């Protein structure tokens, strides 16, 4: 996994709560056996009209928002199905981070496993960011994982966490910044696994 230190990118605002993984990528497109190639189907049903043409009203089809690398949404982002394809589709499209006021747990874990940064901010800051992004196509956020701060060029400068639990935040920050592979980490404890199996 690539390491993540900081990222500056254009914001794509998605002002909704409870964005579920069926919206992020509908089940019809989960049939691929590879990890890549899911980007074209990201938010498929919102992004495309019934005839398959782009829906001009959807944010990902609007200029400047289509090149966003920071998706900003609201509460309970990524609820529903465990499909990691949702994270793969977001990353395949080019997103590096998702900013929301809370994340559904399975999506949250899947993000960590793939190096998609889940940034948790209070609602008031989310509202500020959404307002600025809606008003100004091409609006950018700077996300600094080392110092856990989000800032923009208009005076926003706020701390964030990537998990509500502080020790989980610290651990996941460490693994993301170092691009650590969790299977590799666990296999270092192979003697303990052997021991557990012997005792049980």
């Amino acid at each position, binding site marked *: 996994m690539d390491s993540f230190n900081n990222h500056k990118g254009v914001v794509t605002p998605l002002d909704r709560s*409870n964005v579920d993984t069926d*919206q992020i990528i*509908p*089940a*019809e497109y989960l049939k691929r056996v590879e*990890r890549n190639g899911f980007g074209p189907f990201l938010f498929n049903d919102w992004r495309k009209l019934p005839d398959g043409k782009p829906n001009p009203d959807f944010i990902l089809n609007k200029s400047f928002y289509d090149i966003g690398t920071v998706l900003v949404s609201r509460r309970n982002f990524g609820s529903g199905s465990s499909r990691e394809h949702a994270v793969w589709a977001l990353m395949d499209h080019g997103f590096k981070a998702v900013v929301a006021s809370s994340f559904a747990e399975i999506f949250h874990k899947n993000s960590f496993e793939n190096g998609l940064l889940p940034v948790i901010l209070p609602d008031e800051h989310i509202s500020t960011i959404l307002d600025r992004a809606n008003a100004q196509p091409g609006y950018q956020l700077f996300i600094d994982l080392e110092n856990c701060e989000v800032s923009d060029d208009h005076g926003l400068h706020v701390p964030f966490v990537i998990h509500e639990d502080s020790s989980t935040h610290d651990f996941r920050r460490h693994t993301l910044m170092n691009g650590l592979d969790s299977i590799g980490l666990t296999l270092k*404890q192979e003697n303990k696994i052997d021991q557990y199996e012997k005792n049980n």
Partner: protein
Amino acid sequence: MSLKTVGNRDLSKKEGQGKMAGKTMFDKIWDSHIVDDPTGEPTLLYVDLHLVHEVTSPQAFEGLRLANRTVRRPDLTIATVDHNVPTTDRDKPIADPISKQQIDTLAQNVEEFDITFYGVHSPEQGIVHVIGPQQGYTQPGKIIVCGDSHTATHGAFGAMAIPLGTSQVEHVLATQCLLQEKPKTMEIRVNGELSKGVSAKDVILGIIGKIGVDGGTGYAIEYTGDVIKNLPMEGRMTICNMSIEAGARIGMIAPDETTFEWLKNRPQVPKGDDFEAVTKEWELLASDSDAEYDEIVEIDAAELEPYITWGTNPGQVLSVKDSIPHPESFSSAEEKESAERALEYMALEPETQLTEIEIDRVFIGSCTNSRITDLRDAAEIVKGYKVSPKVTAMVVPGSTLVKWQAEKEGLDQIFIDSGFEWREAGCSMCLGMNPDILEPHERCASTSNRNFEGRQGKDGRTHLVSPQMAAAAAIEGHFVDVRDWEAKI
């Protein structure tokens, strides 16, 4: 429905007392599976059973191959195909080439890594959360994982069942362990007695309606109380199954005589004296009487009713007696907007009585409601009646063995005589991944677990209900209060 939080655990107080409180079932299972527990890092837990299906596993097996790793414990891993499989014409090749490739890929992977596989023509095939218990792989005290969000189903047996994404599937395949941050615990106590026409599905829909779709986020839920104790295993599975719709990955119920009787003589369960011995161990799993939970929620069964979802998340749910709400009636701007969007998608007007809503399709099936008792409950309603000519209705048993059991009991004929289609086992119309999908704008009474936009097919409109409510709606062509309807018989 009254629901209240009766207290947060005060950890400092607990330590101050100098006396250890009892353990929850969650703690007992967690503690007995710790392989490594370094400070400041997630706990490494040993996994007793890994259930694999075709959708979330191909990239995990590929990852193993790329890293030159193998499956550590193929003997603790079983696989089946359920999400993609068609529910008709099983003797013909699968028409969709990409579905076929995903199914074939699993067949190749289980062969390469020597994993027990219940393929599409196996009599034990079915929805992964139906066949695990059915074959007796699911047992109290186990840690069970699966790359599927409805894995909590197995928690109904007093197991700790955890849903995974594909990276974690790969992690478990390679190490037989799982890195987990310890969740908080929530007891949801359902007191009293369910009235006729109110089912296990209504219990969990009522819970979700009250605590919300993220009310359980960060918690492992234990369902307790007389209502839970009096439910058969199938009903308990229905409740645990939808824990994720309340935001919780883990949902569990203490094992008891009902559990042991249900498991006795299942293929993978110990027999004879071994069964007696293992039962003694299972009896110790229940939470101690002085165990403390981080959160307690109490629900009075007398106030539960048959429920119908009206919106596009499972928390947008109301009693069958209610009418569609005005978006303005919601207190927060977020809920108001969400309701507006949901009503537009669902093509519903405020103040419409839920019982006036006409439906096009009925789906009885899914890992939530496709077990034999679900089919019996639905058959009892439709027996002697005909499905409304406006409605296309189908029953999809959760496994081939459930299907055979239903056929032995003559349930298939009851459904067929009523005008239902009687299908082969699979996930079917719960999710739009196989040929069973809604057409755009079709409205469906469904016993499945998600009413998200497009879940059952692009632009399809889903209302989640119990098997009884779905069955009665199929006959009438619109929703009915199954309690009144039964009285009419």
